[in-house]
């Protein structure tokens, strides 16, 4: 529907894997930041008559 590849990630992280969690979050954050903002689904005040 118009979301670029790389903006959505899936990972298994067990509750015991704190280090992996940090890594995954950092990776995802960097990857998404590199893509820049995605404005398609940003809603503004509805334009009404």
């Amino acid at each position, binding site marked *: *529907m*118009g979301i670029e*590849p790389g903006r959505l*990630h*899936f990972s298994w992280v067990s509750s015991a894997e704190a280090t992996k969690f940090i890594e995954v979050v950092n990776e995802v954050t960097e990857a998404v930041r590199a893509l820049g903002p995605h404005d*398609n*689904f940003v*809603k503004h005040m*509805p334009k*009404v008559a």
Partner: protein
Amino acid sequence: MVGYTDKIREISERLLKEGTVDMVIGFRQGSMPMMNEPCFAKRPEDVEKLTWDSNCGINLANYLTDRKEKIGVIAKGCDSRNIVTHIIENKIKRDQLVIIGVPCKGMIDRRKITSMFETEILSVAEEDGKVIVKTGDAEKILEKEEVLQKNCAVCIHRNPVIYDELAADLVEEQKDIDRYADIREIEAMSPEDKWNYFDDLLSACVRCYACRNACPLCYCPTCFVDESQPQWVGKTTDPIDTKTFHFLRAYHCAGRCTDCGACERACPVGINMRTLTKKLEKDCFEYYGWEAGLTLDARPPLDAYKPDDPEDFIK
């Protein structure tokens, strides 16, 4: 399929006389060309109004939700699959139903036929695989194959998958059909083109919810678009809200949709929202080998757990 009517009436009359069912749900002749109206017959003499032709596109499973009576229901292939889904999802009990199966050769696309003529269509009749269309000043004979609803043209389950009675002999299923050509075209688009495609696709939507209400899967007591606490979606035709409605509704149908086409058929402004539901139907088929509503004995893929699920999208 014109000969089906007599048989449907015969079976229905018998079921009502025997008291096997309290009502039969079927179609009656509509007041406009290419339109029939869902209706019920509760007395044996009421069966005279029941009819069958290629304008019975509304999915009758929609009329079974949470009913308490014993019901005879007319079911083409897709209706029967949605009845299966209804039974799995506890919206009706199998032993409440006498399913009168109708092997189907496809419904005609009234929008397509309308767009082929300059002036208003006054009557449409069917004979031996032909569709005879009359306007005020012209008559044209069309091949039915060419004016099928788009979902019917690619249907591979024309025969009811579950039934107690049959209104005709089973028909041959369509083989070697490329069911997803249109979806692959969209899949091949760039993210930006996809966004623009859906933007354009949904621009005419007036948020009347005919698609949702015609869909046998959409029976939630309160739809997410109607919730006020929290309010997930705005109430105007703002493009973001409209898209949110259509996208989320499609996701709610994933693994359940039988591609019966009721949503598109119902839409007053002709939006082809099947491009959304069909993509999810395709994914369910390709990832899980799943087609909705074929059996009472398996749970749909999105509410079942399998240890050997490949899950190759998860890193």
